[in-house]
């Protein structure tokens, strides 16, 4: 079979679990666990505007250097993994790589400074320039992995 035409892939033993043979032709990896469940390319500085996205219903501009991604289809808990980077530091392009950074709120403990945690339907983020101040950035790229509800 060269082309499999389907609307939905479902595991036979467990509906939400499909094994894919890895590149080495021996080990298998899990299809569902390895897929990004959402991604977004976001301009927080101008607009703000979403350039492109998947499973991202909207972005909420919370404050300078602070925003929130809202999912179309929710995760099943708040314990998901986020990978992200920023493309510039407002208009101060010389700053990036020298201390400017992006963080996504993944607080999972009871410690007060870490209590801004994601929810099943959204995750907040902050961007900071090289001087340590919150800053709107032109390019925010994020991808999110975990279990869908």
């Amino acid at each position, binding site marked *: 079979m060269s082309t499999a035409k389907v609307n939905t892939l479902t595991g036979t033993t467990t509906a939400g679990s499909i094994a894919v043979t890895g590149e080495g032709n021996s080990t298998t990896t899990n299809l569902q666990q390895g897929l990004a469940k959402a991604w977004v390319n976001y301009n927080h500085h101008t607009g703000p505007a979403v350039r492109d996205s998947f499973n991202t219903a909207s972005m909420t501009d919370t404050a300078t250097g602070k925003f929130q991604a809202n999912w179309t289809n929710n995760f099943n808990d708040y314990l998901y993994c986020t990978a992200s980077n920023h493309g510039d530091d407002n208009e101060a392009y010389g700053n990036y790589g020298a*201390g400017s950074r992006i963080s996504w709120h993944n*607080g999972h403990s009871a410690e007060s400074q870490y209590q801004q945690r994601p929810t099943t339907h959204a995750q907040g983020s902050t961007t900071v320039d090289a001087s340590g101040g919150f800053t709107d950035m032109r390019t925010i790229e994020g991808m999110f992995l975990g279990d869908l509800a």
Partner: protein
Amino acid sequence: MAFGNLKFDTLTTSGQIHGSEVSIDADYINHGSTKHWVLLGSSGTSVTDSFNNTSVADNGTGDYTLTRTNNMANATFCVNVTSGSHGTSYNVATDTATQTTAVFDIRGANATEGATADIPNTNGLVLGDLA
């Protein structure tokens, strides 16, 4: 229709999310899937959630090694790490020089990168070829 194993080169779906039929070569499923991901805990040295991760080792302040269950085919895989704190004083990075087929490293530092630091709730993911 149920298959124990389905062999195919291209997968075509009706595009229920975006509304138009889409096809993808199976190579993108294999090569484009994340092979290892981890969300570390508040101390940076425990694992909150993960896929294909068997352990985390605390090598010292701001230095963690993540060991996977099924190894990669080589040590030239792609790693992305992201800070999980809303604070203004954290930097995280990976250390490509210490990557092996079995592990990758996450390193943490303070805002000025003047000292190592344990970073809470750090995320890391790996793309590449499985062994």
